[in-house]
């Protein structure tokens, strides 16, 4: 692959901790190979900052393979940057031009408070799962795996929804800071499987109640979530969640 080195200006959000006020800091980074990943570019910058006796930039990351959902940067106005279906860690510097200015911000939503620089607290997602994003089956309760055939189309659709990595880009992109794409992915994943159907009603009702409690907004079907989702989770899942909720709401006995 042809590669070259480019120079960039970075404007990065710096914030000491959750209580303090943040601000943008400008950094010039030179000689960035287009073969680097976006996070490797940050590594290079951080190494330099440490050597210069300055504070490095804190950001979340772990797998750097686009699967753990930890990385979370809002790059030039788009969660995870310009490439479609790509996480921040899989974004490479080929996406940028020499001399470009890149603005990097943390996810913004009341439900995702900033912890430091580009790191936010996404534990609200865990609490939403706690509210019902599971199938209640204790270890040892299971019947033989092939005792319950699952229609292939449904199994595939369930899998496609289960591909969500819980990164929160959908919330970051949504003008309402709604977590509906995330929720709908989980509800769809479980509702399409026969194993998940006994708890369908309570799952939808409780998870939505928790989402509201966490301070996420209401979905207005704008579609921004789907456009930025690194796992290309379909917005149709939200409709399915609505359906689950409506059905549960209309038929609940109490």
């Amino acid at each position, binding site marked *: 692959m042809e590669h070259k080195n480019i120079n960039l200006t970075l404007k990065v959000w710096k914030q000491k901790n959750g209580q303090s006020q943040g601000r943008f800091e400008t950094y010039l980074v030179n000689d960035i190979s287009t073969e680097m990943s976006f996070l490797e570019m940050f590594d290079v910058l951080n190494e330099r900052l440490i050597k210069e006796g300055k504070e490095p930039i804190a950001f979340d990351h772990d797998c750097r393979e686009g699967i753990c959902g930890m990385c979370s940067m809002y790059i030039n106005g788009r969660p995870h940057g310009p490439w479609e279906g790509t996480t921040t860690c899989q974004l490479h510097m080929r996406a940028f031009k020499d001399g470009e200015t890149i603005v990097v911000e943390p996810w913004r939503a009341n439900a995702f408070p900033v912890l430091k620089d580009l790191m936010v607290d996404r534990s609200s997602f865990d609490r939403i799962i706690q509210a019902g994003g599971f199938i209640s089956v204790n270890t040892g309760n299971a019947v033989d795996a092939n005792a319950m055939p699952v*229609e*292939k189309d449904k199994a595939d659709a369930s899998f496609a929804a289960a591909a969500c990595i*819980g990164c929160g880009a959908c919330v970051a992109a949504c003008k309402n800071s709604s977590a509906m794409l995330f929720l709908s992915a989980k509800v769809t994943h479980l509702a399409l499987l026969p194993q998940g159907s006994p708890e369908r009603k309570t799952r939808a009702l409780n998870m939505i109640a928790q989402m509201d409690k966490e301070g996420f907004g209401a979905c207005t079907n704008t579609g921004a979530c789907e456009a930025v989702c690194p796992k290309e989770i379909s917005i149709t899942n939200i409709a399915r969640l609505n359906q689950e909720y409506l059905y549960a709401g209309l038929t609940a006995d109490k």
Partner: protein
Amino acid sequence: MLNSKTPAGPLDQKWTDYKGHVKLVNPANKRKLEVVIIGTGLAGASAAASLGELGYKVKAFCFQDSPRRAHSIAAQGGINAAKNYQNDGDSVFRLFYDTIKGGDYRARESNVHRLAEVSSNIIDQCVAQGVPFAREYGGLLSNRSFGGTQVQRTFYAAGQTGQQLLIGAYQALERQVALGNVEMYNRHEMLDVVVIDGKARGIIARDLVSGKLERHFGHAVLLCSGGYGNVFYLSTNAMGSNVTAAWKAHKKGAYFGNPCFTQIHPTCIPVSGDHQSKLTLMSESLRNDGRIWVPKKQGDNRKPGEIPEEERDYYLERRYPAFGNLVPRDVASRAAKERCDAGYGVGSSKQAVYLDYADAIKRYGHIEAGKQGMHEADEATVIRLGKEVVKEKYGNLFDMYEKITGENPYEVPMRIYPAVHYTMGGIWVDYELMTTVPGLYALGEANFSDHGANRLGASALMQGLADGYFIIPYTLGSYLSDDIRTASIPTTDPAFEAAEKAVQERIQTLMNIKGTQTVESFHKRLGRIMWDKCGMARNAEGLKQAIAEIQQLKKEFWSDVRIPGAIDEMNPELDKANRVADFIELGELMCIDALDRKESCGGHFREESQTEEGEAKRDDVNFAYVSAWEYKGEHQWQLHKEELEFEVAKPTQRSYK
């Protein structure tokens, strides 16, 4: 003397007998017993969920912001189980045998047999939890084959098997959190084990957000903290994967088993430059259809397309005509290294070989053209059809390759190179998964494992879940049933105080160094030493040098590292420094272990121990043991040997010629 506590009786009855006779804890008492679990990967999450379900009071810790992000999430290929759904002759015995043989006869028979026995239950449990495994049109589960076996026993969920399994375990875990049985501590790093009266009784953890140290009591402590491949700096592991939890346990008395057993995976995307922070695995399944080659001429700088067929060296097919491109991981990795070291490597770094799909595309294209009745199809049509087939089978992997390298693998052969992937070594455990410290257990990749000297594909996920769902719930009861009268020990106990103080002082020391070199630069240097001298091929000379270099590196680290920021705040550089300090010490032990083991076996290749054709030569007479190292003080370890006895699977030399 090491006691593996393997139950007596015939191999296939041991686990049944054990379960039938193991002491139980009654439900009322379980509520009074607290269990601390480090890690929420497949091993930790499944253990936390299962123990929570049983009624124990569980506290689980992970350093990521959510338990769902543990490194297990990244596993691609699949999980093995002896279900024999394909009716192709699989059985518990065969899975057991394949694992022992694949591990080059360096694993404990009883553990491996138990693993094979519970493998089926894992699949049942996961399906019940809603893990969306791949299915056939009839709605039943689909299987694929994986390296090193002759049956189709691998269950998978596209290229995201690890994710789907972990999400299943994570959901079960979160359910227990909601029920109040498990308390979850995210963004916490365990920094020491607290031992009271010789028993593990808790931990010291650092809240990574506030920087505060915390004390947590547990009647037992479970280490499920994953592997330590990052000692090589570059590996396919997640950036945060580390040895710290295991290392602290080691220093508190847990023996470290087979530390030098490392798995190097042959098909990873090669290093592109100094900036490289990690390596990405390309699934092993690619070797099913791709052909591996290098130019016959050294330092050939032509583009791959310009190199004619007769000037290409398909070295795996040449050296191993029987298995060709499908030889096991360790063999394929060494062969690639051999070619590159000899100057035949490709790409700008010359540290890569080609994985070529051109033939597969043509082959599939012809088949597809035949299916569609186009017998006179021209070359272009055949290639177009072939590409479609390949896309369907491997599309997501090809896309990932293109994202990372910017090259189109449908047009240009992929460049691949081996990379550190998995560590078979780890904390030594007995049959009950207990370490040499009573009350301290190790599960999953963190223990010295059932994989001997080489792990077969799709077996790590199986082992992690076996340990967590089906083994620890029984074996932990055996220990805790004697502990029901022990009241919770308050964390004001002097042992907790002393442990916290030691951790505090170490952090303080690190921060006070205020040197000139970054943590990252030390980690890189350590990785270089390990890769060059304790990597794919090792020799006594190199290992001795490495030990000296690492000792020197350690000195330099502790006198010249620079950590920015403060202690009482979120400080990722400090977290990293804590981990790298432990990696440096581990690196030394790995080299010592590799030096001790003068044979070649599995992933451990001692250049002194090879056949005339350059193949690995195992030495069962002198080395059929597990090395369990006891920490004795700085730079000092004592070796304990657990002799391995093979009653059922009699050792034979592996050959793939």
